[in-house]
């Protein structure tokens, strides 16, 4: 195998980053999606727009503002410093924060769709069967939203694996800390090491295809929502 230890380290780091980001995003995205699906607040439209922003912004814009915000003079930077956490840019923790923002819409939207498609009826039924709000959420809403959770997890993971711009802006290129596969490919190409670049790029291509294939196959097999 033409892949060196640096490549393997980048792969390992990427998987670690994507896994952690996805788990945190499911925890954060579920309440956001739930709120968006059920609220009648006037804040709904602005929050929806905010969540969708990473879909349209160039990653460099997100990366730039994160860099400024998390830097020593930025509000997030001052907060993390006063909490004794140090500064986030050019650290793995910083990458996680950046990835979460970058992949947020990919997690929130499938969950939001699942909650909307489910409607309020199953929750009303559960209420008439003596289930309180949390009980209803965990025993009815989440199980019924399982396909949405699956899509959200898969898309969040795949999208985080595929990021480049945000990582480069706020993570730089530190081996075993912030150098993920996409950055490693860039390095290999810069160094004209095309064979290694091929292995990494081809691997990414195959991985992304397989993950989307899994997603769409499961969608086709699943019975329609509701009925």
């Amino acid at each position, binding site marked *: 195998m033409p892949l060196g230890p640096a490549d393997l380290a980048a792969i390992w780091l990427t998987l670690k980053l994507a896994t952690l980001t996805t788990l945190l995003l499911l925890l954060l995205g579920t309440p956001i999606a739930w709120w968006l699906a059920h609220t009648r607040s006037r804040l709904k439209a602005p929050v929806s727009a905010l969540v969708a922003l990473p879909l349209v912004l160039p990653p460099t814009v997100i990366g730039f503002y994160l860099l400024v915000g998390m830097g020593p003079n930025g509000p997030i930077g001052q907060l993390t410093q006063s909490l004794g956490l140090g500064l986030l840019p050019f650290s793995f923790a910083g990458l996680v924060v950046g990835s979460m923002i970058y992949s947020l819409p990919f997690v929130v939207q499938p969950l939001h769709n699942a909650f909307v498609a489910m409607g309020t009826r*199953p929750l*009303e*039924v559960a*209420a*008439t*069967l*003596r289930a*309180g709000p949390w*009980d209803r959420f965990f025993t009815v809403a989440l199980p019924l939203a399982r396909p949405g959770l699956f899509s959200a997890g898969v898309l969040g993971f795949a999208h985080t694996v595929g990021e480049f711009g945000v990582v480069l802006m706020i993570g730089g290129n530190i081996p075993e800390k912030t150098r993920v596969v996409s950055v490693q490919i860039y390095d290999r190409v810069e160094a004209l090491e095309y064979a290694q670049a091929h292995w990494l790029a081809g691997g990414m291509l195959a991985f992304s295809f397989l993950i989307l294939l899994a997603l769409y196959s499961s969608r086709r097999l699943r019975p329609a929502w509701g009925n």
Partner: protein
Amino acid sequence: MAEGIEARLRLDYPGFVLDVDLRLPGRGVTALFGPSGSGKTSLLRCIAGLERAGQGFLRVNGELWQDSAAHLLLPTHRRALGYVFQEASLFEHLNVRRNLEYGWKRIPEAQRRVGLEQAVALLGLGHLLERMPQRLSGGERQRVGIARALLTSPRLLLLDEPLAALDVRLKNEILPYLERLHDELDIPVLYVSHAPDEVARLADHLVLLEQGRVLASGPLGDTLARLDLPLALAEDAGVVVEGRVVGHDAHYQLLSLALPGGGELLRVAHAPLATGRQLRCKIQARDVSLSLQRPEGSSILNLLPAQVSGELPAAGGAHVLVRLEVAGTPLLARITRYSRDQLGLFPGQRLWAQVKAVAVLA
């Protein structure tokens, strides 16, 4: 403790206001009847707490569920009710058994008055327990929905047109189960319906709603026979009488029923039934004719002495609807205006009602 259901509820929506003040019996089946858009379902949802009536007072057999004056509004999951939705709305991720257990598990053991086996037997679900809802027919789904609601041992069972989404065959499959519910469990039921035949078969008490208001509320027989209600104008206007089986003529295969109050007899073609059983029959106004003298030599079997208590022009102009009393049991007769004048009908007049057809409901 006050028996019965006391509901003063007001719900304001743009273009629709529900405003009711009702006292309903704390037992038996009460039908909420009216055209679509009359507020039947909204009323039921307010009672369940699924719709928040801004202003209201609701007490169910002594238990206070809402009192806006005291800022009390019990959330749905704290109300001891069972609710059956129009579409069964089963939990698609749980099999039949776990659907049934969902509410049952959530009430304290001491409060469980309906057992799993009892509900399964009552609704005939024994062979379906391990099925997923996707693999049930419409009628089966609705039966599971009803059993699931019963298993919370509700103090009040709310049924929102549970048969509306079903075809006639499935309706006839479920109606007997609902009748058994009525006969075997002592749980008051509020039954939303716009189908007169369901109401006639199941209800003891009738609430008539129109545009969010209560037009009438009273015992079924009396309310159906009221001439001041739109019910009387319907093509199939009629009354429902409940008779007690007193005998059976095996040779002619006729069942004799004693009407409440007087001991007047109705004879209907029917298989033998145990003496003393109550049987519900519908007598349509157009099947009742009137005669001043006791008719002799008539093929009509049922001849009842009656007294005129009111009349109303029927739709079309050629007919009138005459309200009669047969020893306290109200009856309606639809006759032509011409006949009315020929007979010279007046309130209080005594005459004979000939009943051409009696439909046995249950």
